[in-house]
């Protein structure tokens, strides 16, 4: 299946969870937040949330700004 990840297309194995995606990206344990189709996916639901073809996923973090 294919999703949009931070605005870029990305091919993924079917039935991947948000937690597995975060882990595959090397982001486990880092201070991030995940949005799926413009809805927050709380950390407590990363394990249970399965991605679907066409999902738009945003993974964000804190950077310098004023």
């Amino acid at each position: 299946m294919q999703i949009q990840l931070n605005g870029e297309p990305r091919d993924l194995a079917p039935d991947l969870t948000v937690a597995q995606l975060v882990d595959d990206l090397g982001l486990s344990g880092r201070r991030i937040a995940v949005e799926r189709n413009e809805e927050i996916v709380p950390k407590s639901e990363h394990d249970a949330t399965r991605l679907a073809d066409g999902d738009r996923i945003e993974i964000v973090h804190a950077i310098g700004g004023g």
Partner: protein
Amino acid sequence: MTDFFQDQPLRIAGHAFTSRLLVGTGKYKDFDETAEAIAASGAEVVTFAVRRTNLGQEDGPNLLDVVPPERFTLLPNTAGCYTAKDAVRTCKLARELLDGHKLVKLEVLGDDSTLYPNVVETLKAAEELIRDGFDVMVYTSDDPIVAQELERLGCCAIMPLGSLIGSGHGIQNPHNIRLIIEHANVPVLVDAGIGTASDAAMAMELGCDGVLMNSAIAHARQPVLMASAMKKAVEAGREAFLAGRMPRRQSADPSSPFAGRING
């Protein structure tokens, strides 16, 4: 503050702060300089931006290691948002990022070249965020009527620009800032436009409750030294405001007495 005078804390949405200088974390050379400048500024409230992670290069240090939420009151901003919708999404991401944190700096911008606030979208976003339980410190124009409307919606601090973001032009319309302060029942902070220490002192002498800045420190030739200068300027301006300036006079008034002069 001086040892013979104890100021009231700056109270925003249930928080109480000793420092009235709030600082951003953008435009620094590296995280070491960021940390040193923030320490020199004495700031307790620190703003940051929310952005997409750089996929494939995740090993670098994270800003939140430099300004840990346990030590600072973090103020996520919505910089770069041009619509109420994007600003609301960004605040929700920030709340998730910081485990339920409610305090945000709302800014909805009008265009790339002025970064002037789009007040229509700002009002929409403020209303939605407040309904959703956020504490909203709002960046806005120096229009006193817009400021009153934002307060009426429930914003916990009104933050008019002194001049354009990153311009360093200081406070271009002190009369409007004064009008906003006179009518406000929530803290008013000048946010944007501060160029040097005297601008920060001026904001405080006008009666602002605080000042928020980033570029004035980060783009100084010596940012850490400027951070220290800004700390003093905000304190000096605050004390001068509380002390109350002398009346202006049209003619001179000698400080030394006329009586007893040897040529009298």
